[in-house]
Structures are given as structure tokens and as C-alpha cells.
């Protein structure tokens, strides 16, 4: 079509998929896919996708534009966006901006008109890998250069807030460690009545404890949990202190992985991760299954939990991977998935309600 610039995504193994490139923004990143059918804005602004090129399997994107209230972070941290059809004129009463304008304004490289199913099938069979978005006529040197750009490891530092701040609330005071937190986790904690102090990822355990919070929250975030050993050390201290102060600690996603590493368990990289709004999670305590929103490329190794004072509470129905755990003695629990949804189903709000009961009613298992 007129005005469309041909572009392509080249994967590390040389596979090429074609499309059109928006604004001629180029990208290097880890190519992943998300199977959610709605929520492109929430996905784009979820800091956990920092450094990644996100492929959406649903082919019609941008239909309802962009609205401020769906932002999950102050900005988008994705490195690139690969989609099928890019809707230029969205239609929704909530819409404030077109997706294309948002992508431009946020400087997000986007390849559209792509056979995203083909990309997904490739990633599914070959595993997550590095890829670049370039114009179709990019020369060899440019391709080489982009492909050589290393995938950044300091991602948590990049996405966490620089300064602590408070979100007022009537209820218990929760110290929230922001490793790249999604807006709706803060919203969910607020909705259960918490007063929140949101802290940069680098905040030390002593600083956290000095605030005398009623509970601690470990957020989601991007990257390999093993890339942030100093945070793991901090969490170790928080756990140690918990033996005395018995504070409820709740972790989600990266928070869950960091917690497990701090407890001495291990994490590993999944072949292509879990990203979507339809992942079934079985609660082993109740025998029930809930549908969850997920976005993670790493998982906790269930065998590594053997011998630790931890109990697996949730597993993924599809592949049996660990989706949740709790401490056998301390009020510490975490889940790999996203009970705050946004995007995705809100079947798992009960995990926040449990946190509220732990904070206010002294609930313990």
C-alpha cells in the first residue's frame, strides 16, 4: 500500500519474515509471542517486556486505539512490536489516541502485516531467540551491526522507579519493591485497602524494614532473575527477618522467581515462555483451576524446591511447571502468573484478598 515501507524481522538463526515497517524505527531484542486477543496496550506498557520484541498472535491490532487508563507503566519498554494488521483508525469511546501514533510517540519499532502465526510457530519450535527489525533494503553491515547489539541485562534498573513514592490508603502499610511493576498490581493492592510505599529495586532490606511495613510486596519485572544477585541478597535478608517479625510477603512473577532463588531454589529459562491471557493454573490446595494472565520466560525448578521449607501451591495445567508456592512456616507466598490481569482474566483476585486477610486479620495457613 502507498506509504508503507517494506520491512522484515530477521531471527538469529537467519529466518526472515516480511512485513511493513512503521516510522523506519529499527530494533534488536529477544523475540517472544503473546497469544492474548485483547490488551495490546497493556502488553506494550508492561515493563516485564523490557528488551523484548513482542509478537502478537492475534492478527487485528489497534482496533480500539489507546487510552491513558490502560497504561501499565509510565512508558513502554518493549524493544519492538510485531503484528498482523495495524488498525489506523480505532473505534472506541475510551480511545484517546491511535495505536500508530502511540508507537511513534513512544519510539517503538513496529513491523506490521506480518504472518505472526509463522513467527510464533518458529519460536515455538526453535525457542525464544534474538531478532532484529529492519527495512527490507537494509544492507548486510547494518543487519550485522543490529544483530550484534547485545541483549541488555540491567533491565530491572532500567524499569524500576528512580524515587520512592507513596500511594495513600486507609489500611495496612505495604512496602512494594518495584522491579518493573505493572500499574494494575498497584491498583489491586490499593483496592484491598493498602497504603503503599513504592520503592526502587535497589532499596536495601534494612531500608525496607526500617519503614516498619505491615507487609512486603515483590513485584513483577523483566529479565533473568539471576541477573540481579543483589536483589536476591536483599530478599534473603527480608526472609531471615521474617522469622522474627512474621510479615506477610507476597511475590508476583519476577518477585516469585527472586523469592525462590533467595530461598535456595533454582530457576531456568523456558523454551518459549508463557505469554497470554489463557493459561490454566491449578490450585493444588483447592483442586480448582483458574485461567490466568501470564508473561514469563523463566520458571522455578520444582525439583530444586525439594528439601526447602516450600510447598508448591499452583501448577500450570498445560506443562506442569510451578506457578505458585508458599513457605511452610512463614507467611510468604508467591505466584508466577499475574492475578492483577490487565490484560487478561481476573479469576485470581483471591490472591490479593488473601494478602489483605493476612495483613488485616492475621490469616496464616
Amino acid at each position: 500500500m502507498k506509504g508503507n515501507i517494506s520491512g522484515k524481522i530477521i531471527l538469529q538463526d537467519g529466518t526472515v519474515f516480511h512485513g511493513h515497517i512503521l516510522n523506519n524505527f529499527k530494533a534488536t531484542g529477544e523475540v517472544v509471542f503473546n497469544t492474548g486477543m485483547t490488551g495490546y496496550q497493556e502488553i506494550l506498557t508492561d515493563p516485564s517486556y523490557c528488551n523484548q520484541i513482542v509478537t502478537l498472535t492475534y492478527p487485528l491490532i489497534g482496533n480500539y486505539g489507546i487510552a491513558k487508563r490502560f497504561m501499565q507503566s509510565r512508558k513502554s519498554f518493549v524493544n519492538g512490536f510485531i503484528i498482523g494488521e495495524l488498525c489506523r483508525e480505532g473505534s472506541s469511546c475510551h480511545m484517546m489516541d491511535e495505536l500508530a501514533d502511540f508507537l511513534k510517540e513512544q519510539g517503538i519499532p513496529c513491523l506490521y502485516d506480518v504472518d505472526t502465526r509463522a513467527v510464533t510457530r518458529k519460536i515455538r519450535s526453535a525457542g525464544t531467540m534474538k531478532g532484529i527489525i529492519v527495512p527490507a533494503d537494509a544492507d548486510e553491515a547494518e543487519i550485522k551491526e543490529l544483530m550484534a547489539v547485545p541483549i541488555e541485562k540491567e533491565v530491572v534498573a532500567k524499569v524500576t522507579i528512580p524515587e520512592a513514592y507513596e500511594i495513600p490508603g486507609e489500611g495496612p502499610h505495604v512496602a512494594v519493591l518495584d522491579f518493573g511493576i505493572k500499574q494494575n498490581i498497584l491498583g489491586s493492592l490499593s483496592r484491598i485497602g493498602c497504603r503503599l510505599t513504592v520503592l526502587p529495586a535497589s532499596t536495601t532490606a534494612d531500608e525496607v524494614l526500617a519503614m516498619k511495613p505491615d507487609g512486603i510486596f515483590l513485584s513483577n519485572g523483566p529479565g533473568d532473575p539471576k541477573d540481579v544477585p543483589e536483589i536476591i541478597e536483599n530478599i534473603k535478608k527480608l526472609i531471615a527477618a521474617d522469622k522474627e517479625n512474621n510479615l506477610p510477603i507476597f511475590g508476583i512473577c519476577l518477585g516469585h522467581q527472586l523469592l525462590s532463588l533467595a530461598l535456595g531454589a533454582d530457576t531456568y529459562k523456558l523454551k518459549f515462555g508463557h505469554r497470554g491471557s489463557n493459561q490454566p493454573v491449578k490450585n493444588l490446595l483447592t483442586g480448582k483451576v483458574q485461567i490466568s494472565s501470564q508473561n514469563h520466560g523463566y520458571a522455578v525448578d520444582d525439583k530444586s524446591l525439594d528439601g526447602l521449607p516450600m510447598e508448591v501451591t499452583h501448577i500450570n495445567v498445560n506443562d506442569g511447571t510451578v506457578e505458585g508456592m508458599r513457605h511452610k512456616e512463614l507467611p510468604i507466598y508467591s505466584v508466577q502468573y499475574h492475578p492483577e490481569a490487565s490484560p487478561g482474566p481476573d479469576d485470581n483476585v483471591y490472591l490479593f484478598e488473601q494478602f489483605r486477610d493476612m495483613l488485616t486479620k492475621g490469616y496464616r495457613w
Partner: protein
Amino acid sequence: MPKKEYLKKVMVIGSGPIIIGQAAEFDYAGSQACRALKEEGLEVVLVNSNPATIMTDTHIADRVYIEPLTPEFLEEIIAKERPNGLLATLGGQAGLNLAVQLAERGVLEKYECELLGTPLMAVKKAEDRELFKETMQKLGEPIPESAIVEDVASAVNFANEIGYPIIVRPAYTMGGTGGGIADNEEELTDIVIKGLKYSMIGQVLIERSVAGWKEIEYEVMRDGNDNCITICNMENLDPVGVHTGDSIVVAPSQTLTDSEYQMLRSASIRIIRELGIEGGCNAQYALDPNSERYYVIEVNPRVSRSSALASKATGYPIAKVSAKIAIGYTLDEITNAVTQKTKACFEPALDYCVVKFPRWPFDKFVYADHTLGTQMKATGEVMSIDRSFEGALLKAVRSLEIGVHRLQMDFMADWDWETIKTRLTQINDERIFVIAEAFRRGIACVDEIHKITKIDKWFLRKIKSITDVENLLEQMPLTDDLLRRAKDVGLADRSIAEITEKSVNEIRQQRKAAGILPCYKMVDTCAAEFEAATPYYYSTFHAEEDEVQTSDARKVIVLGSGPIRIGQGVEFDYCSVHSVWALREMGIEAIIINNNPETVSTDFDISDRLYFEPLTAEDVLNIVDKEKPEGVIVQFGGQTAINLAASLEAAGVKVFGTSVDDIDRAEDRERFDEVLTETNIPRPQGASVTTVQEAFDAAARIGYPCMVRPSYVLGGRAMEIVYNEAELKDYMGRAVKVTPDHPVLVDRYMEGTEVEVDAISDGVDVVIPGIMEHVERAGVHSGDSIAVYPPQTLSSKVIFTIIDYTKRLAINLHVKGLLNIQFVVVNDEVYIIEVNPRSSRTVPFLSKITDVKMVNVATRVAMGESLASQGYKSGLVDFRPYVAVKAPVFSFAKMTDVDIALGPEMKSTGEVMGIDYHYARALYKAMLGAGMNIPVHGCILITVADKDKEEMKQLAKAFYDIGFNLVATEGTAKAIGTMGINAQIVGKVHQRSADIIQMIKQGRINLVINTLSQGKHSANDGFKIRRATVEHGIACLTSLDTAWEVLRVLTFMRERRLVYSLAVQDYVGGGDDLA
């Protein structure tokens, strides 16, 4: 083994005949459920009155009862079979209503039969308006302000409180029968009166109308452990106000934010939990386009039409999983049949766009009111899949088989802007075409049309993007780039050819040379996240990777029959499925192409590969290019598939079975005349005419009455009997456009007994599994006649002549497979009416009652096996000792303004079967199953045409003799008087004195016998009487032949036990082992 280990035997209730609002989707659901139950080692008892279904095959259930779906018959079967479980949530509203009745009558308790799946209370909470309202209020789910009323006055009072427009919905009906939207008191009164009549419990709900809001649906599943998932959500392109069955629907929703999507998803889960449903459920919402406000409109506590659509749209087998849940499994214990790795407890992710388009019967009911509202009018639907909405929409349009291939209807070309503007405000089957016409001409912008139609701008822009490309095609040379753009928006080669004034072949050549080819993608429930085993594909031009794994094995394509419509129902899907099974049995890979989401043939585990695609030459040829099959089988997909034979052969595709040339010899009037001359078989005198004058001349020569119709028809479209030149003139001007290319056939109308034969031939031998005699004399379309097997009145001479003629025709036409012949017998002479060189609508019926696997045998013949090698001898298969009666079923209650009088135009939407050792009881079962309300005593209104008066006198006396009172118009009463009987005289409708209509309305008439009379007044009177019987649920017999058979039943009823059942297996012996 079921999780509920005490279950040994389960009864499944089917949904009965195809009617508007309840189509083939329940054959699909029921068959899937039966198979799922059998898989668990359960003994399955199936009851359904509809013989044209896969589910009533003897290999689907251990005990198959083709019996009327009434509580009495079901009780009889339960008493006999003693199932300890009853599964009723897969038989549509009909099945569910029966389950409620059986429970309330204490039948289930008496025979210790557990209602499986959704508990009775859940059904009541969802269906009883008051309980539903209470339940929703308890949950805090918003529902529009409403009131339940049982009389008109309360309805009017409530409307005055909340204001118009008001929606009226009767309680306990399906397809919105008797509902509507009222803008004022007069309309409200009208609709409420009707609604009260149709409601099983005499209640209607009246509520605030949210017309214009977005209509959104969710399909939800819940198991006994309270696990809940949503399978799919769907957005109606048509805003609230049009019944969802009449709406263009897209899946998943396109204009909902994640927040809105999840808000309604959560509501659906809260609702299914609160209702305690175990299995599938459907929830419908109205969503305010200007806020996040929503209302719950409706909840169906069962597998529904939308569930079938959601199943096909996602690949998730809702019916199968529902059945497993009913016997105690939880979602996380059931394997996802698609991936065979993951579990059924997940939510499907789509990576394509699905469009459902309704198929309306307005091509048959030209004079019916085309307005779409709360009462469903579509008989069927098509579904299409693509990576773009435009592509899916246009695929759907060309799947409809309504003579259009894009959003363009020729006759709109003459409309001026004022006309278009007016038409845009009318909500009917043509609206989307009018919208496209407005865009095409550039006379309206998206905003304007949105203002008028309230259709979301997203959809409107998509339609516009199609017409924009059409305009480019018109203005610019067809470069490869432009061609690519045209394919990108989904335009068919044929449409591109039409606009650019080139031939389809030229376009196809250019396209292939430019490498613009479709890719085939898989429907896998998981957006490619997991490897899937389903061989279920769709095409798209929006892709660079084709993922079909074709094989080098022997393979054959079977063409399906497209949407359910009058004249082409579920029977043809039955045939396609059996053909696929036969091929697989022969070790040949069977590939099916079809576009109907309601069918068994589009279930992903029926064929080796399923292509969910339009049935047009281009779409089929693209698949042929991809698959390179040995050939294509067209004879089982009804006229849809037959119509493609010539173009496929022209493109070099081998057509198995009867050759394209021989098909033409049977279908082309003049060539068929030659066949008859060669075989020396008589037919009613006739002629093919190409001008109006020729028609007059021919009729004068042949003599009136004449049967007139256009050539190449399906289901007797635009066929009429004319009694004089005036009527012929009227017909030629109104019903057809006669041109040299489209001749009109004028035949002598012979009033005799109609006989129908289905036969299989291999060119050498001709096997005739059975002969059926029609109750109604020739002149009533064969699809609307009651058919009886074996014939009851034919002489041996006639039967032998029929066998002889059948053989001669089959051999002369070199039939390789099935053929269907209709004869008329006059004074023991046999004449031929028509030959269809393909499977017919009676094939499933005949296969079932004769136990000849007709489609299997015919498929083998088409593939080259002789009849002899299959163990068949030429000739008529011995008649069975029982009688089977096939009766038509109509959907007149849904189609106001349609004349119910039987004639040469087919009007029925479905059929039922009655089988018994007594002819009269078989007849009774068929009539009962067809929903005919036969009174045992009371008052019969007789008003017949003059030509029928002699015969009517005998009939009247016979009814009088068994105790009926007679009411007649003056002339008829006088005639009856000559028999020494007094009939009460009633004034004609237009005379307004002691009006017939009044008597019907007051419930003083229990049965009406009315034959079509000529003349303006009486024709109009007759129409009003007949419609009144429909609105008031009274049987109306428009053929004296039917009346005689009703009399036979009534006489029998006095002496015999009526409710008596045997399984099909008991009649025909043994099940087959096809599956």
C-alpha cells in the same frame, strides 16, 4: 468409564426437526455427545424424531429411537430402557423443555433416572423470567428494567411507566418466537398477544429496549468442581435489536478493550457459577458503546447455536466436553482433543477472525417481511475464517449461495441517494449490501452511516475498505499490485473479473503468475502456542507460510452442501459425512470442504482434512491445487456441489461418479427429453419457452392447469400451478425473468399420486433400496409431502413399471452412484417428473429404514467398485414389514406473512419420521413428531375451493361420523348438506359477519381444512384463515389428501394404544459398524 461409576446407561435427547431457530447444530452437538459417552463405555440410548441426522445412525448410539419428542413417548422409552442418566442439554431448547417436563411429571424420579449436566434449578433460573431477574439481582448483574406479564393491560401499564421502545420476549421459547420490539401501544398489544400464545407458560417479559448498543456473547463452560472457562466471545456486527441468529457475528470481539472483554467475561463466569450449570452455557450482553455500562440480556443454560459456532470458530469441542462433564469429569481431567497434549481446561486463543453470516429463506419466501428483529428468521448460517475481517466477511458472503459474490446486489445500482438513505434505516437482510452500495458510490461517509445504523465504525470502515478497492479496480489498470490489494481485501477472482470486465480465468492466470496464492493455516485452539493434531484449515492471503501437511496417499475431496436452507437441509450433510466415512473405510484420504458451522461434516475429527472454505469454483480449485487429489466427489453435497461440477471439470479436475455431461443430460430440459425418448419413458407434456408469447402458446397446446417454473431450480423455487392464461401472464411477469438464457418450463399438471425413488447404479446394475409414496397428490412439492415407505396404494404393475423406468434411466444416464427420481402415477400409468443425478433429501430416511448404506455403496461405486462386487443385485430391495412415514416440518410461526398453503414451492424447513408396524400409528407418530396438533374431538372448519367440493363432502361426512362438529362457509356448508349433515355456517372473512378469524381466535375451532381457491376475495380470505391457524397453534390442512390421512389416524386412535416404541435396531436389526 465415567467418573460417576454408577452410570451404565444414558439417554440423550435430540432436538427434533430442523426449524428456524433450531437447525443442524444439534445434530453436531448430539452426535459428538453420543460418541463421547460411548468412548466411556456407556450404553447410549438416543431419541430424536429427525431421521436426516447422523446422530440417529445406529452406530452412534446403542439404541436409537426415531420417535416423536413428547413426554409420553419419552416416558415409554425410559420405562423400557431404564437409563440411569438423562442428558438433555445437547438437544437444544426442545430437549431441555422435555427434560423439564419429564422431571415435573415425576418420570425421572419414578424410573430413577438422574438428570445429568445442568440441574433443573439452573434451567429454571435461566429460563423463568422472574427467577432469572431475581438471580441476576442477587448477583448484582444489571438487567434492563423489565416486568413479567401475563396479560396485555399489565404490559401497557409498565410500558407507560418506563417508556418506549419496549422489547417483548415470551418465556420458554427458542429463536425468539413471538417476540418483537414495540414503539407504541398498538404494536405492544399485538406482540404481547402473540407472545403469550407462544410461551409454554403463558408469560412474556417486557423490558426497556437497548437497541443500538453493542451485542456481545460469551460461551462459558463449568464443571462439577466449579472450574469455569470461557471458550469464546463474539461480537454482533448488528447492534442490539436484531436476534443474534439473524446477526452477522464476528469472533472474537473486535471493538472491545481488554477491560470490557474481561468485565463481560467475569460476569459470564459469575452467572454460570450462580446458576450452577454443569456443561456449556451462553450469555448475551448489551454493552453501551459510550461507556462501560452493560446489561445481561439472556442466558441459555445449554449448548446452543452459538456454542456450535464457538466450537467451530475455536476448534474447542464444546458438546463433547459438556458430555464428559455431565458424567462427572472435570475440565482438567479431559484431554484437549486438538492438541492431545494440553487439557480441556484452558481458554482458546484465536489467531484469525471468524465471521458468521445468517442464511435467510427470503429467496423462497419472497413476499415475507424481510425485517429483522427479535424473532429469528434465518434457516441456517455460514461461517468463514481469515486473518482479516474483510477476507472473512467476503468469504461468508460468497458462501451464502444467494447469487452474490461480494457486497453488491445488482438491483441497487438503480437506486438514488434518497432510496439508499431510506433503505439504510431499514434493518433487513440487505442492509449490509446497502451500506456497501453507499460507500461504493461515495455518497455517504462512515460517520453518516454509523449515525443511521449504529453499526460500529470499525466494521463500517472495513466495508468501505473493500468498496474503495473495488473502485480502484474500476478506475485503474489491473497491475499485480492492485490485484494483490484486491485479494488482500478478500475479493474473489470472480468479483475482480466482473469489475475489471475480464474473464475469471484471466484473473486466475494473472494471479497465479504473480504468485498471489492463498496460504492455508490451521485452527488449533491455541494460536500456535502448542503443536496441534487437528487437520482443520482455512485459507488466507495474509500470510507467507502455508502449514498444511499434505500427503502422497490416495485422496479425494468431498464437497459439502453449505448452509441449511429450504430445499437443502441437514440431509446433505448426512450424505457428505457418510461419503467421507466410506472413503476412509476404503483407505482413501477424505478431504472435506464446507462452510456450515452447524454440521457434523465440519467437525474436525470426521475427515482426514477439513477445509473451512466457501464452496465456489475458485476456493475449491485453490484447495485442489494445494492437495492435488485424485478427484472430487460432488453427488453428496446437494445442488451446491453439483453446480460446481462443470467448472471443476473444465479446470481439469476429475469428477468421480456420474459424469458432468450426464448430469447435464438429466438437468437440461431438452437433453433430458432426448433421454426420455431414447428410453421410451413418458412424462407430462411440456415445453421450454423463452418468451411470454411462447409460454401462452405452449400452455394452450398442453392444456391447463400447467406447472410453470424456471429451469435449473432447487427445491421448486418460483414453481407454480396456473389454471388459466391470466394466471400464467401474472406468473411470467412476476415470478421469473424469461430470457433465451433462462428459459421457463411449462408442463401439463397431472393430478396423480407422486412416487419417489432413490437408487444406486454402477452403470450396469441398478439397486433400488426403496420406493416412497407421497400422501399429497402431485402439485405439492415432494419435500413438503408426507412420504410413506413402502407404498400403500400402488399396484404391482405400477411398482414394476417404476423399477423398470428407474433402471432404464440409470443405465441411459450412465449413473455412477446415486440418483433420485420423482414419478407421478395417473390411472395406473407412470410418468416421470424429474431426475436428480445425485443424493437426495430422502437418502438418510431410506438408508435408515432399509438398512442399505446407500451413501457408502454409492461412494464405492463412484470410486469404481461395482455393485455386484459389493454383493448387491439389480432391482428393488425387498420391502420391509414395517411402515416408515416421513413428514415435513414448517417454521411458519417464525415467518409471518408467509402463506402456509402447500404447493409446488417448497416451504418446509425440516422433517420427522414415524415408524411402526401399523401404518396408521407410523402416520400418527410422524404427524405428532411434526408438531401437528391433532384434536380428538371438537370442531372442524372446512372451507375449500369449488374444484374440491365433491371430494370434501365425503371427507366431511367421515369426520362427522367419528364425532366432529363441522363449521363451514355458506357454499361449503350447502355441499355438506347434500350428505344429510348440518354444518354450522360461518361468514367469510371479508364479509365480517360471524367471522371465521374470530372463531379461530376464540379457540372455537380445533382443526381447519382449507384448500387454495382462486379469486381475489377468497384467496385473501384463505390466506388470513391459514395465518390465523398458525398464530393460534391450530392444525391447518391445505391438502385433502393430508386430511384423509388425519382421519385414518383419528380412526386408529380410537381403537389402539398410541404410545408404543421400538428402537430402530429392533426394526431393521443390528447396528452397522461404519464408525
